[in-house]
């Protein structure tokens, strides 16, 4: 218990690419602020990158008290080795009580390596965080959302990764003190190297970060019919998703798959078109804030999870909905 007396502070690991923050960074700081206020502790943020000192203060806008910055060319693009080594070194020195990361592609890779380096425990992909008896209680979906687990980490730091798009980014301005630290890096420690970054040129937000998703399933009947889904997505500024059935049929690429063996998404609005709602699909989108189901089968299980449902032929409804949304947003 001596360790718990010493461990203090709610920390986050910020995420940025080439000097631009990922939205999850602000969600993390906001979530940390809430916990820190309950504990009467400070919010610390770790920011690693190349040429990023200028953006460090921005985390103060969401409630960071201190931002620990290490600026080094070896941090960009992200590699596990460079980031995990630098963070583990700082965390061991400073001993925060709680350490939060995003359950993003980078955060998942990094946080789990840190579990090993810091010899601690972590709750992955959390949807709620509470303080109970001075300890972090992390709520996370398990069995792909078929149940929830409340996780308690008994070592320090108590780690949790947060599902993107679930925790609101709330402005809560503090004047963040920027503290530079020496990551103690040496290029020979890096065993992996990013050779190429192939950017998605669709201009669409990734499914895991999208505010609105329009998804099509088996009811789309073929790849050529996705044009009506794309048109609706365009007027809504949404990203297009698909069910496993549609991906397995080769109608949509693997990266579009939402579900237990695809992506887990939490948009504000999820519109499921011609998706029956197999348990495997519900697992991937169950934490969406609003769910709309359009399906001609009134018994489709998706309706049990939908906030709004239309029992009708999607080929009639979707184009009409596109027209109506266009009118509303005009």
């Amino acid at each position, binding site marked *: 218990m001596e360790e718990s007396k010493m461990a203090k502070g709610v920390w986050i690991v910020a995420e940025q690419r080439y000097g631009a923050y990922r939205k999850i960074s602000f969600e993390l700081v906001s979530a940390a602020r809430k916990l820190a206020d309950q504990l009467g502790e400070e919010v610390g943020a770790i920011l690693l990158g190349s040429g990023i000192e200028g953006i460090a203060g921005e985390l103060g806008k969401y409630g960071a008290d201190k931002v620990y910055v290490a600026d080094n060319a070896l941090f960009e693009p992200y590699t596990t080795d460079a980031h995990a080594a630098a963070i583990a070194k700082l965390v061991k020195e400073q001993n925060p009580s709680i350490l939060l990361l995003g359950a993003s592609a980078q955060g998942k890779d990094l946080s789990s390596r840190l579990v090993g380096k810091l010899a601690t425990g972590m709750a992955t992909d959390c949807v709620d965080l509470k303080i109970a008896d001075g300890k972090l209680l992390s709520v996370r979906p398990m069995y792909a959302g078929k149940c929830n687990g409340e996780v308690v980490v008994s070592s320090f730091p108590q780690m949790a990764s947060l599902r993107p798009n679930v925790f609101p980014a709330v402005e809560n301005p503090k004047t963040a003190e920027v503290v530079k630290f020496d990551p103690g890096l040496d290029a020979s420690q890096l065993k*992996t190297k990013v050779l190429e970054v192939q950017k998605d040129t669709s201009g669409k937000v990734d499914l895991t970060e999208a505010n609105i998703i329009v998804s099509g399933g088996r009811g789309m009947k073929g790849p050529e019919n996705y044009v009506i889904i794309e048109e609706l997505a365009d007027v809504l500024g949404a990203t297009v998703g698909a069910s496993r059935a549609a991906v397995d049929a080769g109608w949509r690429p693997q990266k579009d798959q939402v579900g237990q063996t695809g992506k887990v998404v939490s948009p504000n609005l999820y519109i499921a078109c011609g998706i029956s709602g197999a348990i*495997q699909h519900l697992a991937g989108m169950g934490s969406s804030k609003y769910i709309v189901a359009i399906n001609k089968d009134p018994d489709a299980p998706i309706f049990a999870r939908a906030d709004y449902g239309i029992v009708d032929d999607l080929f009639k409804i979707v184009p009409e909905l596109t027209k109506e949304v266009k009118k509303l947003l005009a």
Partner: protein
Amino acid sequence: MNIVTCVKQVPDTETLIKVKPDGSGIDEAGIKWVMNPYDEFGVEEALKLKEKFGGDVTIVSVGPARALETIRTALAMGADKGIHINDPALEGADAYNIAAALAAAIKGIPYDIIFCGQRAIDDDSGQIGSVLAEFLGIPQVTFVTKLDVEGASIKVVRPIEGAQLLIESSLPCVVTAQKGLNEPRYASLPGIMKAKKKPVDVKDAAGLGITVTPKAKIAKTLPPPARPPGKIICGEEPAEKARELAKLLREEAKVI
């Protein structure tokens, strides 16, 4: 090229999960157990590499007695031997301890690549591969959808939000498999017959020289939060229904 693939036995994706009334976990009665789908990609990739470069494929699994079926499935697909880590102290243990057990078992065998699924679809924790890599002091490449061996290193494709990365890693290394990596084969009948005779070593924590020291626990398991009942939008014409839906999304839900 010697390869290790870690596998876990999990409930089938279509299984209904019932939470025990006291919140102490899930009710295992009636569950159909299968190999974690992401681990299947790891087994398949290991077998493809073995076919190309030769060497041994060893399957390692932590789990109760029933987990042996999953090891046998991988052996029937074509893997050479298995290590079954079975110890009550490791049941439901956190990633740190499971990875410590795997590392202890793997340390004694030669390996160039270790495959793990990117996560197991039961606890969805997704930590094992990286923690294992840390314990073995080797690099990791996670969520891999394509892999090529080039001399003493590998090149892999890793999708991230809005981009695909091509990453080079030295060997040995841990690779976590993502859907898209390959199409796992089915075990053939002769494969199933042969698997029965393939060696499976059974170990417990003491035999591996490790002590389980819990770092995290699931204090309570709860049913998912209930969603308020939804609204079915009625109307004569598709246009009318669509208009009503657009209005509700704008004015009631305020999401567009």
